């Protein structure tokens, strides 16, 4: 596969993952904090962490998603999201195995999945998309534009 095609795939992967996360994050910022905390409790997370996470997750997801779309701090944003999604995958899996009433709930990526299995699948897909998103298509990022602009000035 030549570099250009890889670049396009990376860009599309970045857009899909970024848009999915941004949309979900935006919806969560508008949802009630009580509802998000309740969702997290449904996943078997300790009570003390739920309230805190319900405040942090929506804004983290929204802004990291936007950074992914624009390609700003791309490797850092993608890594942070990949780690968060991997942690969530573990949380979702344990909730699913323990048969907690967590069906239809999710932390990252989607606001209201129809089942736990669907949420786990979507998370896995997002993690897979983050790989080409991080390592290909760097020419279409803000990072590249800024670097290019500075390089020209220093020539």
């Amino acid at each position, binding site marked *: 596969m030549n570099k250009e095609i890889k670049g396009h795939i990376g860009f599309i992967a970045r857009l899909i993952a970024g848009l999915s996360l941004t949309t979900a994050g935006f919806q969560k910022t508008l*949802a009630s904090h009580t509802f998000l905390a309740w969702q997290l409790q449904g996943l078997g997370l300790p009570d003390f962490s739920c309230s805190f996470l319900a405040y942090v997750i929506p804004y983290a997801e*929204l*802004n990291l998603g936007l950074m992914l779309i624009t390609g700003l701090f791309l490797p850092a944003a993608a890594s942070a999201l990949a780690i968060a999604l991997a942690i969530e995958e573990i949380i979702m899996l344990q909730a699913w195995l323990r048969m907690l009433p967590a069906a239809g709930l999710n932390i990252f990526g989607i606001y209201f999945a129809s089942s736990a299995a669907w949420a786990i699948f979507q998370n896995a897909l997002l993690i897979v998309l983050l790989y080409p998103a991080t390592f290909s298509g760097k020419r279409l990022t803000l990072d590249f534009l*800024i670097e290019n602009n*500075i390089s020209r000035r220093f020539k």
Partner: protein
Amino acid sequence: MQKNITKNKIFNARRILAAMGIIAFSTITVIIAKANHKGPMMPVPEYRIAGAEGNSKPILEIYEYTDLACPACAIANISITDIIGLYGDKIKLHFKHFPLAMHKWSEKASLYADCAGEQGQFFPYARMLFENQEKWAESETEPKEFNIYADLLSLDKEKMQICLKNTSNQERIKLEKAEGKAKGIEGTPAFFINGKFRMGAGAVIEEAKKIENKLLQEKRK
């Protein structure tokens, strides 16, 4: 070497500036969306939906946030019942609980109404509560009317008790109220009519007039 360090510093400074721009943009967008009462809505249980049935597309889709002990809500309820009676499948009403803290028995009344709903009698039970607010809303002890209305509608008492003790039903009411607050609702009755936020009992009547015009236009065609 020095040139590279300076270049890196400028590069990082610009990226940080751009990141701050993104955060500022997202924050402003969220503030604007909240000010415009946007935000997701949980679906209501089937028994709390009136008017158009199934997937048919109504002319008016109303999400009503109501407190069963609020007098203005009782007035709005009469208007809505009349309008649904008139236009039937042209309107779809989604009833949402928003028990105000100043009404002592509101939350309990919502729970009773939901439990009546589980036995298919939500709207008749809610109507009884609205029509007789003065009898129970200010009561010092738990109003006996809750059980009287259940008896009048011949509801299964055992099922009712199980439902009342079910914490997920209580939770749903609290979540609905939290949802309403997140959407900027401070008083009742509050409506989302075809997605537009409206306050007060008169809002539905105004919208009903628009339906009439729309239906007349359709007839003329």
